[in-house]
């Protein structure tokens, strides 16, 4: 069974603080996606990382893919209340039966207080 462990499960911080969310697995992924989800809505794709060691930046968000493509991190600098939401990582396994299956982490619920 492929697992993608995400930590922490919950994070409550003040506006302006920095934070890091982690996704770890024993499986090697062909890529890894990060999504953000608002209550009652579908997840929205933030970024895809493909190459081991890859770093992508999206404004105050920095995403990193581990060298071995088994883990990833999301770092938010100077968090704002608008960053509040559920952050999900999803790893794409190598094609099996011609299909790239996504394995989702359990999510990190982030609350940023003004």
């Amino acid at each position: 069974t492929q697992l993608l462990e995400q930590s922490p499960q919950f994070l409550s911080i003040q506006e302006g603080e920095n934070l890091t969310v982690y996704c770890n697995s024993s499986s090697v992924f062909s890529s890894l996606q990060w999504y953000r989800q608002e209550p009652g809505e579908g997840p929205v794709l933030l970024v895809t990382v493909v190459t081991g060691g890859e770093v992508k930046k999206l404004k105050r968000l920095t995403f990193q893919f581990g060298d071995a493509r088994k883990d990833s991190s999301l770092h938010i600098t100077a968090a704002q209340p608008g960053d509040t939401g559920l952050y999900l990582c999803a790893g794409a396994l190598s094609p099996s039966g011609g299909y790239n299956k996504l394995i989702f982490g359990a999510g990190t619920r982030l609350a940023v207080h003004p």
Partner: protein
Amino acid sequence: SQTIHQWPATLVQPVGSPLSLECTVEGTSNPNLYWYRQAAGRGLQLLFYSVGIGQISSEVPQNLSASRPQDRQFILSSKKLLLSDSGFYLCAWSVGLLAHEQFFGPGTRLTVL
């Protein structure tokens, strides 16, 4: 641009009643389509995926079934709902069989009483 629709947005059904949730995609052809279920505030579990009309693959044994009667339409059904079928159901699409990225619809909140 591509858009994905799901309806209804919310549904309350008694145990033992039938279910039909619909998902449609616009702005793309021959998408791969997926049904996920999400427990309250948690990760997603893949239920079904489809690579074409009439082609359905099931990921987990369950009380639900899926059908794809048209290229951009995906339906999730049940003949008799169980309490454990309650949850947030999400439809997603991707283009290309080996596509890494999936794009999600707004979801349907199902409560079985």
